[in-house]
């Protein structure tokens, strides 16, 4: 066991650290940065991305010929670890560079790669992903958005949902049904969609907590040229699975929820009617339990990094992190609000320093137990793909989609 970087990675880290110190001067505070509006965020992100691209840090593990860094996944993670010390705009390019570009590289024609990859890496174009639908969440293959071939184009009608960044994206990966008489998984095709094309309408979804981080995207007669098709007609499911596999490489990304360190920080400062919160045995036991999870997950990330270093892809066991962290954030938030007694009914901003993050975990913790695979789906994934338990009996996969009872 050795926690040090390899000599070559250590050199990379030192260089990255030096470059960041020179170019990303604002040291970061705790918690996520709130940007006043999308325009400010996107402008800042575009500027930062172009700086990184010029220095070879824009997409470290992607090939140099498209403007990537030609490095390793480990180096990409090292850069991210260092970058997170600074107050730079995260989020805008994550889906594009983490999921869409690798998909384009894996599935796209040379023409597609030339047209899109370098511009995505340089930050000139922003990407999003249009998979989920109102009636196709956990069961993605139940999606209904149709794409019909008319001459050299495809005509798309339908509705997507939970599309992060749709409001400022230039392009998106679109999974649509091209053959309703085929079985559920066999009738799908993966496309590139121009988010500025006529017929694309983006509407923000108002959330539980009033925030808007996701969108609905309505597609009415949107034209997609056949050259924007990424898989053979009917081959979309495998294509989408490629995209989702790359999602797993997003190792150790901060999902912005509170953890044991927040609980320790706040409870050390908080006086309750029975004394300092961190002296309360009930609070102390939850501090320990939460730490065991947080720290355990961090160590599991070390193991994943070890495997990446050995050239292995991360497997479905990565599902643990979100499964454990999201529920725990809800639990910690509820505990902390309870500790405020009757004030626990007030909004976070009325509770003082650090409490907006608590409120966000109370509300957004609920969302994180659903987004990117519900707790229930993640347990299925662990049981079936890690432990080898049999899939449940189902009969929706063998019938033509248009004969399904749904």
């Amino acid at each position, binding site marked *: 066991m050795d926690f040090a970087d390899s000599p070559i990675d250590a050199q990379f880290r030192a260089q990255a650290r030096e470059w960041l110190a020179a170019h990303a001067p604002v040291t970061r505070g705790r918690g996520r940065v709130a940007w006043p509006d999308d325009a400010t965020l996107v402008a800042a992100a575009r500027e930062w991305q172009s700086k990184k691209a010029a220095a070879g840090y824009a997409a470290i593990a992607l090939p140099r010929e498209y403007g990537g860094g030609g490095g390793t996944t480990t180096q990409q993670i090292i850069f991210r670890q260092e970058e997170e010390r600074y107050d730079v705009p995260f989020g805008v390019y994550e889906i594009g560079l983490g999921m869409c570009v690798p998909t384009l590289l894996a599935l796209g024609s040379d023409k597609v790669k030339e047209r899109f990859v370098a511009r995505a890496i340089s930050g000139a174009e922003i990407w999003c992903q249009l998979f989920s639908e109102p009636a196709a969440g956990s069961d993605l293959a139940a999606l209904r958005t149709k794409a019909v071939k008319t001459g050299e184009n495809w005509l798309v009608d339908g509705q997507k949902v939970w599309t992060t960044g749709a409001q400022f994206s230039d392009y998106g990966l679109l999974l649509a049904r091209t053959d309703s008489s085929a079985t559920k998984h066999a009738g799908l095709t993966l496309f590139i969609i121009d988010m500025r094309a006529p017929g694309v309408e983006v509407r923000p979804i108002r959330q*539980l907590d009033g925030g808007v981080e996701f969108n609905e995207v309505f597609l009415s007669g949107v034209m997609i040229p056949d050259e924007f098709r990424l898989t053979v007609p009917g081959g979309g499911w495998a294509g989408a699975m490629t995209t989702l596999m790359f999602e797993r490489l997003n190792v150790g990304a901060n999902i912005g929820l509170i953890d044991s360190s927040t609980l320790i920080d706040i409870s050390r400062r908080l006086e309750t009617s029975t004394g300092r919160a961190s002296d309360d045995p009930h609070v102390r036991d939850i501090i320990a339990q939460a730490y065991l999870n947080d720290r355990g997950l961090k160590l599991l990330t070390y193991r994943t990094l070890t495997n990446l270093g050995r050239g292995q892809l991360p497997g479905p066991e990565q599902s643990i992190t979100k499964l454990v962290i999201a529920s725990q954030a809800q639990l910690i938030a509820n505990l902390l*609000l*309870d500790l405020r007694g*009757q004030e626990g*009914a007030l909004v976070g901003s009325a509770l003082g320093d650090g409490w907006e993050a608590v409120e966000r975990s109370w509300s957004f913790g609920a969302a994180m137990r659903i987004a990117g695979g519900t707790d229930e789906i993640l347990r299925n994934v662990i049981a079936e793909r890690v432990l080898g338990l049999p899939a449940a009996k189902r009969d*929706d996969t063998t019938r033509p989609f248009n004969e399904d009872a749904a």
Partner: protein
Amino acid sequence: MEFDFSEDYRLLADQLRRALEEAAPLEAARKTVDTGQINVTAWELLGEMGILASGISTDFGGNGLGPLPVCLAAEAIGWSVAAIPTASLYHATPLIQSCGSPEQQDRWLPALASGSATACVATDSALAVEDDHITGVISPVSGGTGASVAIVRANNQLWLVDMAENAVEQEALESRDPGRQLCRITFRNTPATRMTGDDADLALNHAVVCVAFEQIGGASRALNGAIDYSRERRAFGQTIGSYQAIKHKLADIWTKIEIARAHAMYAAWSLGTGAVDLPLAAAAARASATEAYLFAAQETLQVHGGYGFTFESDSHLFYRRARALAACYGPAVEWRSRLAARLIAGETTKH
């Protein structure tokens, strides 16, 4: 053995639920999240149905029916997630009834019975008093916004303050559940009158038992919604309600609600009969109903998947209200601590 509400009360419960479903549909509760407005129609309805008057003796404009109708109304309020100044009904009214001087009762109870006045309570405050004038801050006060009268504690006694007095400053606070208004009240040498009784515990127990019924009503509605949704929503070729993960979650919610309901019913019986085991019964009702609603609201939201996280769904109404009701009167863990102290000291229930 007859451990159930009587036929009359069960009819009343039905009426209350139906009337509030109409006066306070969930769509109204969703609007309230933005407006923060009290549902005046629902409040007036409770007046018309005699609920506001039922905890008040006939001497002072009440109907003397006692706490059970209020408990049933609380369940219907919970079911409809109505925006109502419940502290006046659950807490202030029984407190003035039990501890007010004849003058105070004569001045306020008829107005509370008719619904023309509302009252708020901060019996856990510790204000300064000099020459029958009070100074200090109480916060957060539920239902304080717009209350005509406040009951506070100063010099270890209960005092009643007419909120029309000039020297009272009210500041609305931002509540996570805007359907339950909270405020900060500042008294600056404000005239107050002393209350004759000093036993705030009975009214506090009255309040937490009513809140328990409200919590059970809310949890039941959340469960019903999740059952309906899981019978319709399909994934992988089946309705999601046919999957054990969903089934067992809903079975666990139901179990917690049924246990909490049993405690609340026994506490209502203790309240209605003046049984000596009310403190034990009320603590049990409060602790179990708080946990049941928090769990039901959290996990029924989960059952709704992404839709449950949207503002357009009903899930957040329960999620907000469950948290707000958990905060008022202090968290479940405190009530469990009180309960344990009584149990370890050897207290038991009558039945």
